[in-house]
């Protein structure tokens, strides 16, 4: 008799992140030009994934500013979520996925997003132990946050186009902070 439970799948979309210390959880997402950072602390047995696409043109991304702050925010949310569950920054390791250069997007925003993630992790002293970025096809990604195992499947051309169309539709440029936090009390 097989008593192994089926994995609990948690799907995230652009602008979201998820942290878990449940070995039975697998976090999934679908990436076109977007990038997902999968970070875990092997000693604490906790890991997580985010999924972001920095808004703006490649020029704007290169110049830093608000677009970069948005990406930093999503990385920070993931790292803070891991710290809350007992992770330590000096033990964290990361894998990076996504950032495809798709036909639909002539500019190479995907590469810029992947470069941003690599640069951020390097600056924060988090080692990158695996990555699969670029290419012309989107990815379906699965990440087991406790073991650190990651598995990806290449999307077909049609699936990639559909994913990129979803990624590039107009959305709010940044995750809305809780309304409460905008309270000013001078």
């Amino acid at each position, binding site marked *: 008799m097989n008593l192994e439970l089926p994995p609990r799948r948690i799907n995230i979309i652009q602008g979201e992140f998820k942290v878990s210390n449940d070995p039975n959880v697998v976090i999934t997402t679908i990436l076109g030009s977007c990038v997902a950072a999968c970070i875990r602390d092997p000693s604490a047995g906790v890991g997580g994934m985010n999924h972001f696409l920095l808004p703006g043109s490649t020029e704007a991304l290169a110049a830093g500013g608000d677009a970069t702050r948005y990406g930093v925010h999503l990385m920070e949310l993931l790292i*803070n979520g891991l710290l809350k569950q007992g992770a330590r920054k000096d033990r964290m390791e990361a894998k990076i996925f996504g950032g495809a250069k798709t036909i639909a997007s002539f500019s190479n925003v995907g590469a810029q997003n992947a470069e941003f993630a690599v640069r951020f992790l390097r600056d924060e002293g988090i080692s990158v132990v695996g990555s699969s970025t670029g290419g012309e096809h989107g990815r379906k990604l699965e990440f087991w946050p406790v073991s650190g195992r990651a598995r990806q499947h290449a999307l077909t051309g049609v699936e990639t186009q559909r994913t990129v169309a979803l990624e590039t539709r107009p959305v709010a440029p940044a995750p809305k902070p809780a309304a409460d*936090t905008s309270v000013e009390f001078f």
Partner: protein
Amino acid sequence: MSIAEKIKVLIVDDQVTSRLLLSDALTQLGFKQITVAGDGEQGYKIMSQAPHHLVISDFNMPKMDGLGFLQAVRTNPATKKAAFIMLTAQGDRALVQKAAQLGANNVLAKPFTIEKMKAAIEAVFGSLK
């Protein structure tokens, strides 16, 4: 000399990238005297030795978090008059209320825009020009 140039600012954040971005934003706003620290403990040490006019601190940090740091700054007679802006990636009402009780001048949610940061600073110091 502009007002911004006269203000000594201390940035406290455990993320290198966040410190760099904030430092860049403040430089764009005309600030020239910028010091950085990686956590509340280090920030408080700097404040005790050389009080700064303005502190911009993250909330979620190891060792001493933003609220602990704010409390320490407000308790020390040498530093208690500093303007204090708290930044938070995961804000909630309880945090904002606690920060207000402890004497923060403002709480800004990340990611902030340069305009928002400018408005928050000008609300304390007036025009930065």
